[in-house]
């Protein structure tokens, strides 16, 4: 009996100790505000640039202090979700477009519309309109775009010259790409004409180049197995298996396509403008062009934005910070100077600075591509969608399913995901 009571006493003690440790609040007196900012995009490479931005912001707003915390992209969303669950949401945090919808739909974000209306210094035309609107959900502004990047066609000029083929132009189609790739491919030397990965992101863009899409316009019906989509996926696979102008998974054997391009083994590579820095020191000439399409042009568009937690006690200060990161010239200038993605500001002078940097020579292409941007087909069950596609596209890549079979099998699964 006593033993039992001893145990209870012990438990109570433990509980009391634990209770004593929790619940502390930090409120600044003298009107000073401390603001948390949780972020993934700087990484090690750009942490110093983030510090510069914070310094500049604190100079303009002496009564606000920014406490930033970084996490690697792989861990970021788990950590963020856990902090939200624990009632310890950071005042402001970063979201990429794919995850933005998820958080907005769960009601974790503050509606910024009122703050925007009250702020006479801010007008949305300071920003690229497409990028600004990307962070709206159900017609309300829940986030502010801070930067974007896209994917274009990188090409190795030297390989084109050697094969005597003209450089890609804006009006190229898939057929032109294939013809050039066939001329350039030289298996004995391990040189391949063109490369695009077979995965979900590449898929939703490639089908768009053929007029297809994953969902209908108002996102109520899955259109996964449409004619246009099957044809587009067939084309992706044919480049590897039928025309042999793209290395197979086995031929790549773990090397990244970026490394292969850098080694001068790929003539045309669809990849992101974030590779500009990585390709700076290649010993051949390269440039970029718009991607060839089939019936129309389509280019990836990825954006990061800042959001404000709905639970923050410092809504106004948070808005100032978010606005600074999104629309201020100072933050944009720091981004451009350090090649840290592209700011979404519409200021042409700033853009000019960016265009003058080389390589590549045709930097204007980055902005031209925005005219035909395709955003990720985001739904609430985004991670399930990408997993389902990854599995089926793997089977297509392995030759275990034809594109038609795989897309037919996916159609009902994807429909289920939006019906939930």
């Amino acid at each position, binding site marked *: 009996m*006593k*033993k039992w009571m*001893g145990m209870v006493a*012990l*438990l109570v003690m*433990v509980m009391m*100790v*634990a209770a004593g440790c929790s619940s502390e609040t930090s409120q600044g007196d003298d009107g000073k505000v401390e603001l948390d900012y949780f972020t993934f995009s700087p990484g090690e490479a750009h942490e110093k640039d983030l510090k510069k931005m914070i310094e500049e912001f604190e100079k303009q707003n002496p009564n606000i202090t920014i406490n930033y915390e970084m996490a690697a992209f792989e861990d970021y969303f*788990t950590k963020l*979700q*856990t902090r*939200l*669950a624990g009632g310890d949401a950071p005042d402001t945090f970063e979201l990429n477009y794919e995850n933005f919808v998820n*958080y907005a739909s*769960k*009601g*974790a974000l503050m509606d910024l519309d009122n703050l925007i209306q009250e702020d006479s210094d801010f007008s949305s035309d300071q920003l690229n309109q497409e990028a600004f609107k990307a962070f709206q959900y159900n017609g309300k502004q829940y986030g502010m775009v801070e930067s974007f990047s896209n994917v274009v066609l990188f090409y190795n000029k030297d390989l084109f010259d050697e094969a005597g083929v003209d450089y890609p132009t804006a009006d190229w189609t898939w057929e032109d790409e294939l013809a050039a790739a066939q001329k350039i491919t030289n298996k004995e030397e391990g040189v391949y004409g063109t490369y695009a990965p077979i995965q979900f992101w590449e898929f939703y863009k490639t089908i768009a180049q053929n007029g297809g899409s994953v969902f209908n316009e108002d996102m109520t019906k899955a259109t996964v197995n449409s004619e246009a989509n099957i044809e587009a996926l067939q084309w992706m696979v044919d480049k590897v298996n039928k025309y042999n102008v793209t290395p197979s*998974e*086995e*031929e790549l*054997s*773990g090397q990244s396509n970026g490394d292969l391009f850098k080694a001068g083994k790929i003539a045309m590579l669809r990849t992101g403008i974030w590779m500009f820095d990585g390709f700076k020191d290649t010993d051949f000439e390269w440039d970029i062009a718009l991607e060839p399409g089939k019936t129309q042009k389509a280019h990836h568009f990825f954006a990061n934005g800042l959001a404000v937690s709905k639970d923050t006690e410092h809504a106004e200060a948070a808005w100032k910070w978010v606005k600074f990161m999104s629309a201020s010239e100072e933050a944009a200038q720091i981004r451009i100077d350090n090649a840290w993605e592209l700011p979404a500001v519409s200021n042409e002078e700033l853009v000019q600075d960016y265009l003058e940097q080389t390589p590549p020579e045709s930097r204007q292409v980055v902005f031209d591509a925005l005219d035909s941007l395709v955003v990720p087909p985001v739904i609430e*069950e985004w*991670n*399930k969608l990408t*997993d389902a596609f*990854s*599995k*089926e596209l*793997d*089977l297509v890549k*392995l030759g*275990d399913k034809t594109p038609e079979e795989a897309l037919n099998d996916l159609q009902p699964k994807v429909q289920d995901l939006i019906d939930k």
Partner: protein
Amino acid sequence: MVGDKGFKKFLVICIFLLPNFIGFIFFIGVPILASFGLSFTEWDLISNPSWIGIEHYKALLGDEEFRSAMFHTFYFIAGYLPLVMSGALGIALVLNKKIRGRVFFRAAYFVPVITSWVAVSLIWKWLFNPTYGLINYGLSLIGVSGPAWLHDPTWAMPAIILTSVWKDLGFVMVIYLAGLQGISPTYYEAADIDGASAWQKFRNITLPLLNSTTFFVLIISLINSFQVFDQVMIMTEGGPAGSTTVLVQQIYKHAFDYYEMGYASAISWVLFFIIFGVTLVQMKLQKRWVDYGN
């Protein structure tokens, strides 16, 4: 009734147990209980959990991904268990003899055990590389063109099994060695006098007297292999085409990719009951074949 002195003694014991006990309560006890409760709810970490009864458990019955994860887990166990146990016993038998450099070999087999799973997985990933990997190079020397291993749905799981066997062999070997050294040499001497062959000695002396060791190894390895995760996550992430998805990885996926804590908890509890059931059956069966001697 316990006297005053006894109670004091009890308190002293409690104080010494306290640090460990607190850790257990908060990091193991409470989460375990919470996960059981959560398995009857829908919870995305942001909104409040909502009670849905046994819906998750019902859904599991029709969940194709769950079923294939279950199948792959059993596939893993079926390949891994016999290999690691027979391999470890074989090595232990050899290294129990007075051969040259046996201390070195014992250490060598044990090194993978203390190496981190991340390092082991990454190195084996390279070894299994279809074009540049050492394994396919070795196979090509004897005229075999090796498969694409981790890129091939047929060969990805065998590759993971091989890696796991290599890593755990040393641990099981050490336990078998201890078991072997507990066998009194007098049995073998008597058998020698009777003219028993090496096989007869192994079959009739070594194996029966190792029963309790084998039982321990079996239970521990089985529990561990139900929880196979690290190597899968690093080497294939469940691919290609979902051919190496396993149960714990499904738990991880639902909890931290899909933010379905309730569903993830339900899978955890199903996994627990499977392990519990299997272990229980073995405990019952042990009476028939395990002999702890005196």
